[in-house]
């Protein structure tokens, strides 16, 4: 599904290398988790994959279902099936959440040569998905993320994911800022989307989320590299001992 090979990334503005040879493959139907200390490059990886400006790829490649991600515009990546749930969802005052969702759904469909969703179908779907995530009608009417609480923003990201039905979902700290109940809702939302044709990359600091979203593979990222890969037990180890031992192992 997602194949990242020897990815090197530096900041465009300064000579600062952030990713220093990331190798990672997420297969269809699998959930991979990435953990790692603050500043290790997890969000940068998600941004580079989704096409944010300001980063320069100096080496390596990233493909989605065999297609070269790095040469595409962000909107093309989205239409190709990539989705990033942002660590910090952006507030957009003046753009209604509903308008935004419908525009996004139909823009992707159009890019893929599919028919646009009718207003009626869209409304029905969005109401149903919103209900599952306990997002009320008022939140749908309000401007995108504007004035939303931290947890509401994260649930709104999952709603977008549910509506867009991407093939490859990257979740960047979607659990941070969530209360226990909201975490369960979000996990349910993710689990509902788990299927044989879809891959997940879940970035998190806490093992807790992984109790709800069982990962197949756990990676540890440190200083721009994946330094260890293992099963779900790796997350428990980090929870117990922190990153010091792991870092020492590689050093």
């Amino acid at each position: 599904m997602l194949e990242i090979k020897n990815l090197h990334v530096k900041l465009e503005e300064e000579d600062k290398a952030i990713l220093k040879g990331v190798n990672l493959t997420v297969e269809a139907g699998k959930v991979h988790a990435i953990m790692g200390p603050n500043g290790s490059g997890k969000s940068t990886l998600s941004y580079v994959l989704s096409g944010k400006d300001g980063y320069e790829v100096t080496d390596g490649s990233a493909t989605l279902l065999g297609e070269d991600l790095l040469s595409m515009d962000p909107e093309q990546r989205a239409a190709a099936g990539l989705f990033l749930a942002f660590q910090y969802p952006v507030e957009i005052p003046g753009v209604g959440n509903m308008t935004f969702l419908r525009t996004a759904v139909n823009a992707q469909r159009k890019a893929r040569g599919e028919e646009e969703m009718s207003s009626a179908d869209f409304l029905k779907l969005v109401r149903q998905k919103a209900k599952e995530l306990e997002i009320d009608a008022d939140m749908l009417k309000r401007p995108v993320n504007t004035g939303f609480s931290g947890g509401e923003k994260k649930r709104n990201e999952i709603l977008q994911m549910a509506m867009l039905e991407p093939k490859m979902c990257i979740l960047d700290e979607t659990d941070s800022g969530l209360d226990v109940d909201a975490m369960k809702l979000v996990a349910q939302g993710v689990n509902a989307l788990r299927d044989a044709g879809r891959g997940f990359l879940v970035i998190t600091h806490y093992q807790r989320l992984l109790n709800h979203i069982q990962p197949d593979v756990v990676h540890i990222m440190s200083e721009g590299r994946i330094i260890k890969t293992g099963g779900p037990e790796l997350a428990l180890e980090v929870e117990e001992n922190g990153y010091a031992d792991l870092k020492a192992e590689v050093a």
Partner: protein
Amino acid sequence: MALPQAKLDATEARISGLSRIPGGAWLDAAQGAALERVLAMGVPGRRDEYWRFTDPAALNAPEAPTAATMTVTDEAPIFDEIDRVKLVFVDGMFDAEASDDPRLAGVEIERLAEAGKTDIHWARDVYGMLEARGQSPVQRPFAALNTAFAQDGLLIRATGKAGRHVHLVYLHESESSDAILHHCIKVEEGAELTVLENGPGAARFNKVMEVEVANRATFNHIRAQGRDHERRAMTHIFARLGAESLFKSFTMTANGVLTRNEAVIEFTGDNASAHVAGAAMGDGDFHHDDTVFITHDAVNCESRQVYKKVLRNGATGVFQGKILVKAGAQKTDGYQMSQALLLDDDAQFLAKPELEIYADDVACSHGSTSGAIDEEALFYLRARGVPKAEATDMLTLSFLAEAIQEIGDETIRDEIHDRLEAWLARRRG
């Protein structure tokens, strides 16, 4: 003080071809007094402080610069779905054939040329009177010129709650038309009136609207200046607000090589409220100037200015806004905001926000900003699959939303929003 010779010459040249509507005593006196004001002030020049950002040359020229007309076929006329009395002007002259029957419950509508012949008329206390009050402390020569030489106009008096909106449509059919139009509106105590306006008016359009809003009266104004790019427009609204009255005016401008909209508002009664707002967008040689002057001369009045402009490809936006709080105008609440979204490096926004306050118990704030599109928001939209051009338009509309939000009526608000959206979409192709 005598005017410099050059200014005198320019003024003479400007008025030499103009003629006055023959009127009865009151109109004749108002025109005469206005002519004296014009001669004393002279037409504006680039050196005048008030015209630093907008070149008045095309407005001063003895003949109107030609402007191609535009036939719109890809959208229905604006406000068409609204239940209103439509009154049509073609190149600044009233066209009764094309207009609705002007009889309207709660409202009297007369043509200036006819009502002006009467000896006594309510408009005597409005026509040229609010304009004259608005000449100090800043001179507005084009408004005085308008009072002296207006060719047509309506006198509208609301005595109760108007049964329907009054809609003034200004068509532009001649490439060289030079229209001077003057309306007087009086909203009597407790009455309520909404005036809609749209259309380019003429190749060159000088329009004055004087609005007297009596105690506890409500006046609502929504105007759309759009699409006809080559026209030049100089408009003034002079409003005088009585106690507990409500005044609202919103202007949408899309295109236009030269537009200057002045709003001159005076609070004379306590506890009144005035909201003025504008959403403008243009490209290339678009030049758009909002000049606002609000005088608080009463207690506990609220004024609010919200102006937004979207500029690209060298387009210029101007905002000159002043809140003057006179001594004794305590508990004034004044808010002023002007913002420009610059979609490229060539566009420019020139702003001069001013506060002048002579009372001590007031709350006034103002802010003026210009900036580019929010890159974080743009990326967020693109990451959800919205193509860059479309995402930029969404953010552009969202930038304008705060101004559009100032329109109270939801139907009209939606229509203005949709027009602006369509304008952007057409541009995108």
